[in-house]
């Protein structure tokens, strides 16, 4: 690895272009000791040169001027060469080069438009022993069957090797059949192949996740992995493409240290909570910035429509990321620390997720077809509800326990007492009289083996001047509960063209339609099918005797969800078009101007229809509402890049960039009631009660960015970024913030003192420090405002809607990061270790106000919070051979979050922040939203009453809930550790991939237990209890966690908030298990195709949960609550991938 990058770049374009960088790495790998190659790729065109006594460099420059050729050489090699004279007419390039290098120890190699000049001594050495060698030849391909020009084929243990030509072909003389070929290429895993008797080889390289020479997509450009000073992780598209999830962010789980993803719902396409290095802010946004192809994008949910009911939001979400097809993604890079994120300025303070899409590749048009089909079920079952007989048993027991003694009846006589006093509101009586028909609502709403299917077709090709990538995809995913599904179609066209030698243009258009039908989640009762089992009485059957959906029952306020699923309409429909165009102009050498315009237009419709016959719409004779939201986002970027080379070894690149972003959101809603007939669901047909609404918001951002990157011999790297950013979210005087970051890296393994140590293939240390910020608060949040959307008796009414704070400005965080990257034994063991410390201060915080102000909170820059932790990644090549390869990787991260400062009220008392006051609190010295609640002390074996600790910790217990104190529970909702592991095995053409993820150290709270875990009438009459209630206390001495059944609505408050329903969040999950077969080239060539792979993939097949009391899925939203949302799914998918 020594002298890596020890090259003087004569051409700044190399730095900028991914493809060129690939070639550059080809060249570099040659410099690293590959010593024989064949010149090829002759171009048309001849040269006439007449120069006298010039340096050889001047000759090269003349050639560069009059042709497309660009020279690459080590400056040292040209030192000490004599000046030359040259006089040639109509000579071809080979003649010119021969003439130039005559008498020197140098030779030339032409690789397309690049001419590499290097020392030629070693070549001659090999030629000398050539006689005893055997000839072999072959081709190197990637797993998609695309040839890999520039791959290195080396005879192991020698310096004998070649580089593949532009068709991926090579030929080599090796010492004998015992020789082993070492085939390597940047971005791919190195392969070892025994020569044996074979003389012709077809070698397929697998993409590498840990390659050191990988090109990393960073802020406004790409860099070699060794040039990076920040903390980044890149995941290749290939790792994501086949994971059957509706939106690509879900596929990242467990793959990146320090990144946690929590599903707010398993409904296909719904929004995910993504946290990079924890929670930076208490009440402002904690979502990372998404950047697609260099442009900051609108992420988040396009539809967060819903109402608030009993303090919980009943919601339906659809992530805008669902509009991307994961097969179109080239890579996703996660930028974590200040140095990496600073280019994206303030909005990168919660981390940046950079998505790079696939671009056209030159060459013959390649088609890629993939299809998968599978089915899915809930990954965890959750609780079951009581059946009719169980509920009867418990209800009668509760009656007897409460009234038996006082009224002198036995347990057997309880039913007569119920009838006499009508204690059951006739519900039990009706069921008993009907002959106790069996009803299973769990079953009724379950959609077993819900199908999921994915089809995509792409084509890419091009020539020297232009290239294209086009794709089409279709996804259909049904949810594991009736009535919900997700459909998406996408179309992409990416096109690039060279207008002039110094002017290139590329554009990409991505249009998609997403249709998600689904009921509102997050709440309870009718809106949520998951809740049906706990809200529908098991004394009511889902279907009537004739098999029709039962809507004629009495004595329940709840509607038959089966009917609603069939006759009501709820959907989100998102059409999104993203256009991203880019022009690059090399004004003069090393000075490049780039301009990018991105237009992102999303139209989403959210429609709700409630039918006339049954349900919420009945009383209104049908109701319909429709909401159309148009979101237009415009980003313009102009930048100048300049590359300076000072005294040969100092390379400095400077970038100046201006970016303007504007977002406009326009919403129009309509509503109507009273439909004249069934089957009409649009507002136009409503007869009365028309309502209309609208909203308009815009926001904008203006940024000036400067970046300087210094590189000395590839050993010392330093960079500095400064960004001044203005946001419309603050008042004019406080609008601008200046943010910066500095980073440095030392590639120690490039140093002489380490270069001799063979087993160290890579060792580098890096550090960064920076100031970044956040403006993730509501639009116009600083303004004290009046709203006008109310009315009173037909007159427009005005009300105070925002307390306002004109002093509001950027939230800031200081972020330091130190890391070591390593690779040992030829990178058979590689990885990195990092420590980070991030202090957020001037938090944009919703400080609770005394309600007597008429407002509940206002936003202030107050408070501070610290996140710190370590991140560790390691990958092993356990076995590498021709037939069997095994590699494994492991990542682990810790997170320590602490609130260090909050707002104080007039008496100097801290104003703590909570999002559920009897459950959690953010307070100085504690983790954000740490659980703060009454502590459960079990059930008194003597009398079956619930017990709590009086002081909230230990000691004295009480069965009077209202005198028990709240206390800290030591854990918050965010995991304190998380990680993942993966294993890849391939044997001949078979392969197995396994991925697992784990996290823990947090606690999660089960939301609706106060309804279905009550040992009182809420569970026995109003709602329905969970089956666990059967384990209730019955006789003195019983040891159980379920109190005695009693006839009161809340069962002595036993199911009120307490640690009874707070569980450890630790779990480990087998995310993916893939088994596949990759057809060999010999079969493929007979079939005249380039690649064929079949696989079966299982997702979420296994889970281990630490806290056995937890019945629901431990994957919950970042707030740590588990409700009755759709849980993550377990799926089995069969797929095939065909290239032709």
């Amino acid at each position, binding site marked *: 690895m020594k002298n890596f990058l020890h090259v003087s770049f004569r051409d700044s374009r190399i730095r900028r272009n991914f493809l060129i960088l690939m070639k550059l790495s080809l060249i570099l790998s040659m410099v690293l000791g590959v010593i024989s190659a064949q010149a090829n790729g002759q171009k048309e065109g001849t040269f006439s040169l007449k120069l006298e006594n010039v340096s050889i460099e001047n000759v090269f420059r003349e050639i560069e001027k009059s042709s497309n050729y660009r020279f690459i050489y080590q400056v040292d090699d040209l030192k000490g060469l004599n000046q030359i004279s040259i006089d040639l007419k109509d000579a071809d390039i080979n003649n010119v080069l021969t003439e130039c290098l005559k008498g020197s120890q140098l030779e030339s190699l032409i690789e397309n438009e690049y001419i590499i000049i290097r020392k030629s001594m070693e070549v001659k050495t090999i030629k000398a022993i050539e006689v005893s060698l055997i000839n072999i030849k072959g081709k190197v391909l990637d797993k998609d069957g695309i040839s890999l020009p520039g791959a290195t084929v080396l005879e192991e243990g020698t310096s004998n090797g070649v580089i593949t030509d532009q068709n991926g072909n090579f030929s080599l003389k090796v010492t004998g059949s015992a020789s082993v070929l070492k085939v390597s290429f940047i971005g791919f895993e190195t392969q070892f192949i025994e020569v044996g008797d074979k003389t012709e080889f077809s070698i397929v390289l697998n993409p590498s996740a840990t390659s050191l020479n990988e090109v990393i997509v960073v802020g406004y450009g790409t860099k070699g992995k060794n040039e990076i000073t920040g903390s980044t992780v890149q995941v290749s598209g290939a790792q994501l493409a086949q994971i059957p999830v509706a939106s690509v962010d879900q596929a990242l789980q467990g793959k990146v240290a320090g990144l946690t993803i929590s599903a707010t719902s398993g409904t296909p396409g719904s929004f995910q909570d993504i946290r990079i290095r924890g929670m930076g802010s208490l009440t402002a946004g904690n979502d990372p910035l998404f950047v697609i192809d260099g442009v900051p994008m609108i992420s988040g949910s396009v539809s967060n429509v819903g109402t608030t009911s009993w303090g919980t939001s009943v919601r339906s979400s659809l992530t805008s990321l669902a509009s991307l097809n994961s097969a179109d993604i080239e890579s996703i890079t996660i930028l974590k620390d200040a140095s990496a994120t600073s280019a994206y300025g303030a909005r990168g303070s919660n981390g940046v997720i950079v998505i790079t899409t696939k671009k056209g590749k030159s060459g013959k048009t390649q088609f890629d077809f993939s299809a998968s089909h599978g089915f899915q079920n809930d990954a965890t079952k959750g609780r079951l509800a009581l059946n009719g007989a169980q509920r009867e048993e418990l209800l009668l027991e509760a009656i007897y326990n409460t009234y038996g003694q006082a009224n002198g009846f036995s347990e057997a006589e309880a039913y007569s007492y119920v009838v006499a006093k009508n204690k059951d509101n*006739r519900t039990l009586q009706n069921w008993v009289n009907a002959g106790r028909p069996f009803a299973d609502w769990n079953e009724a709403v379950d959609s077993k083996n819900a199908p999921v299917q994915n089809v995509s077709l792409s084509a890419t090709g091009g020539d020297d001047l232009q290239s294209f990538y086009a794709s089409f995809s279709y996804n259909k995913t049904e949810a594991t509960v009736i009535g919900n599904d997700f459909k998406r179609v996408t179309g992409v066209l990416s096109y690039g063209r060279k207008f002039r030698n110094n002017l290139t243009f590329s554009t990409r258009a991505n249009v998609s339609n997403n249709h998600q039908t689904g009921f509102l989640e997050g709440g309870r009762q009718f809106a949520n099918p998951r809740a049906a089992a706990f809200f529908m009485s098991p004394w009511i059957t889902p279907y009537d005797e004739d098999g029709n959906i039962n809507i004629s029952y*009495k004595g329940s306020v709840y509607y038959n969800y089966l009917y609603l699923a069939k006759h009501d309409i709820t959907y989100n429909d998102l059409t999104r078009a993203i256009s991203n165009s880019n022009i690059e102009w090399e004004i003069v050498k090393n000075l490049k101007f780039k301009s990018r315009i991105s237009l992102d237009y999303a139209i989403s419709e959210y429609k709700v229809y409630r039918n006339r016959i049954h349900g919420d719409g009945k009383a209104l004779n049908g109701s319909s509402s429709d909401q159309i939201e148009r979101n237009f986002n415009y980003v313009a970027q102009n930048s100048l890049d300049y590359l300076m080379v000072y005294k040969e070894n100092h390379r400095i690149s400077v970038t100046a960039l201006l970016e303007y972003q504007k977002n406009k959101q326009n919403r129009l809603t309509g509503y109507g009631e009273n439909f004249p007939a069934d089957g009409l669901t649009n507002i136009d047909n409503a007869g009365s009660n028309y309502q209309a609404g609208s909203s308009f918001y815009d926001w904008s951002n*203006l940024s000036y960015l400067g970046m300087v990157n210094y590189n000395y011999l590839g050993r010392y790297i330093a960079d500095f970024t400064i960004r001044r950013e203005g946001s419309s979210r603050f008042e004019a005087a406080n609008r601008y913030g200046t943010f910066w970051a500095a980073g440095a890296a030392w590639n120690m393994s490039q140093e002489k003192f380490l270069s001799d140590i063979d087993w160290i293939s890579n060792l580098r240390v890096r550090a960064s420090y920076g100031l970044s910020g956040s403006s993730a608060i509501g639009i116009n949040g600083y303004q004290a*405002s009046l709203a006008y959307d109310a009315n009173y008796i037909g007159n427009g009414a005005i009300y105070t809607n925002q307390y306002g704070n004109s002093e509001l400005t950027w939230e800031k965080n200081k972020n330091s990061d130190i890391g070591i990257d390593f690779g040992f034994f030829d990178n058979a063991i590689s990885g990195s270790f990092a420590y980070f410390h991030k202090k957020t201060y001037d938090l944009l915080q919703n400080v609770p106000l*005394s309600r007597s102000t008429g*407002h509940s909170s206002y936003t202030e820059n107050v408070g501070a919070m610290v996140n710190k932790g370590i991140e560790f990644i390691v990958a092993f090549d356990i076995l590498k051979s021709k037939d069997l390869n095994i590699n494994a990787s492991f990542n682990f991260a810790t997170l320590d979050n602490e609130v260090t400062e909050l707002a104080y009220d*007039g008496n100097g008392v801290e104003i703590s922040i909570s999002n559920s006051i009897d459950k959690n609190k953010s307070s100085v010295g504690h983790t954000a939203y740490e659980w703060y609640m009454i502590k459960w002390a079990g059930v008194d074996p003597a009398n079956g009453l619930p017990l709590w600790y009086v002081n909230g910790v230990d000691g004295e217990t009480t069965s009077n809930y209202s005198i028990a104190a709240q206390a800290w529970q030591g854990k918050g909702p965010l995991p304190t550790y998380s990680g993942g592991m993966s294993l890849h095995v391939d044997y001949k053409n078979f392969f197995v991939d396994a991925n697992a993820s784990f996290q823990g150290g947090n606690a999660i709270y089960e939301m609706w237990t106060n309804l279905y875990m009550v040992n009182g009438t809420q569970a026995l009459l109003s709602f329905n209890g969970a089956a666990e209630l059967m384990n209730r206390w019955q006789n003195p001495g019983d040891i159980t966690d379920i109190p005695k059944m009693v006839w009161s*609505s809340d069962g002595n408050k036993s199911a009120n908030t307490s640690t009874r329903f707070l569980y450890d969040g630790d779990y480990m999950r087998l995310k993916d298990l893939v088994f596949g077969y990759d057809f060999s080239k010999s079969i493929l060539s007979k079939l005249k195709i380039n690649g064929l792979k079949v696989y079966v993939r299982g997702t979420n097949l296994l889970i281990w949960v630490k806290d056995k009391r937890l019945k629901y899925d431990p994957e919950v939203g970042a707030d740590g609550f588990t409700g009755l949302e759709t849980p993550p799914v377990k799926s089995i998918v069969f797929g095939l991938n065909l290239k032709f």
Partner: protein
Amino acid sequence: MMKKFIYSIIAITLLVSVTSCDKESLEPTLAQIKDVATSIKTVDDLQGILFGAYNRMTNYNYYGRNVIIYGEVRSDNAFADGNSARLTTVSNMDMLYTDSDASATWTQIYTVIASTNVIIGADLDKITGDATKIDHIIGQAYAIRALAHFDLLRIYGQQHVTTGQNIGVPYVKTYKGSKETLFPIRNTVAECKQFIMEDLTTATSKMSTSLNDNSKQLMTTYGAQALAARVALYFKDWTTAKSMASIVIASNKYSIIDANKYAASWSIDGSVNSIFELGYSNIDNEWINGLANIYRYSDYGDVRALPNILTIFDDNDVRGGTVAGTAMIDWDAVANFKLRNIGKYPSRSFDDNVPLIRYEEVILIYAEAALETGDAATALIYLNMVPAKRGANLYTIADKDNILLERRKELCFEGFRFDDLARTNSDIPLSDPVLQTHGGPAYGSYKYAFPIPQVEMLANSNMVQNYGY
């Protein structure tokens, strides 16, 4: 050299071309909201904010439902059966400091106060329009501010909690005042009473009888005076109650509704017996959260009448459950074992106005105040004015029990019952121990006041929690 220079110029021009980075490019559009400081300029703006205050009163956490229900389910008139789990903790009189109803109503009423304070605190020099009209608007704001604080006081104040030390609620007189107003303390009950009466006096003096709104949907001088009578009665200030009631009576603007129009009057806006009512149109309340729903309908109809209430009415009383065709209280048509208020707030389309002050109440206030000031004869005359127009038997004597009984009959389901019990130092009667889950707390119990919501306690260390929570 020249060429490089030109290129540099081009480059820099290009760099800044797309972003014409003037200040306006970062100015957000205020499309549907306006800045508070600069947007109150005319009498119409003030009027709009006043409408905003009324509108906030119509919310279901205030007079749209809950505040009315609080007065009923904590009494012997009604209870919440938990059918859809609404208002059960109130009905059980077993609230915790985290109670969501306690918090929602506290919050909602203070938003009304904030709206009135924007009007009261407006800089009159900057407002154009007729001065009398402006004063009339400001007067209404004072009256509503008084009403809102009175409602807070009777729900959260400690006047009926034996160990409550007579702490009231923060009486807020400014919108966005000084830093101290962010952390207000609770005024005493006496201070609250004083401020309420002061505000009502100011209200009457600012408003002009000539500008009184005839639709009854806005506060008027008589509304403010009737309110003063109600507050005075609550605090046993019989003289004030009597004098204030007498002004309203003397206005001759209102009359007791006739027996044959009684049932229908609940669906009529601005009927003759109405002094002040909140205007509702059919889009004002989500049906699921409306009064009609919680009283009348089997789905979401959580608040049921206690069977005992049927027994207080004479056979021909139009307010009872036995008069054919006009029954105000009846058994549920779907589940016939549930007794319901079906007469008041009947319409499920929610366009029934909600009367807040009726003339009958003023008559009964006058009767009670007369009795308490020693004029039992006058009291009897006024007391009998109401049953005389209800098809009910007349009383032979005016005593406290009869007046309270008549108030219960006339005002049942309108939210008065709990306060009538509390202000007469009564226990909550347990007429039906099976249905009434509060167990009949004795007068002075901490349960006579709601808890101060935890959200308020957390935001303001000056706030003192009510005894018992």
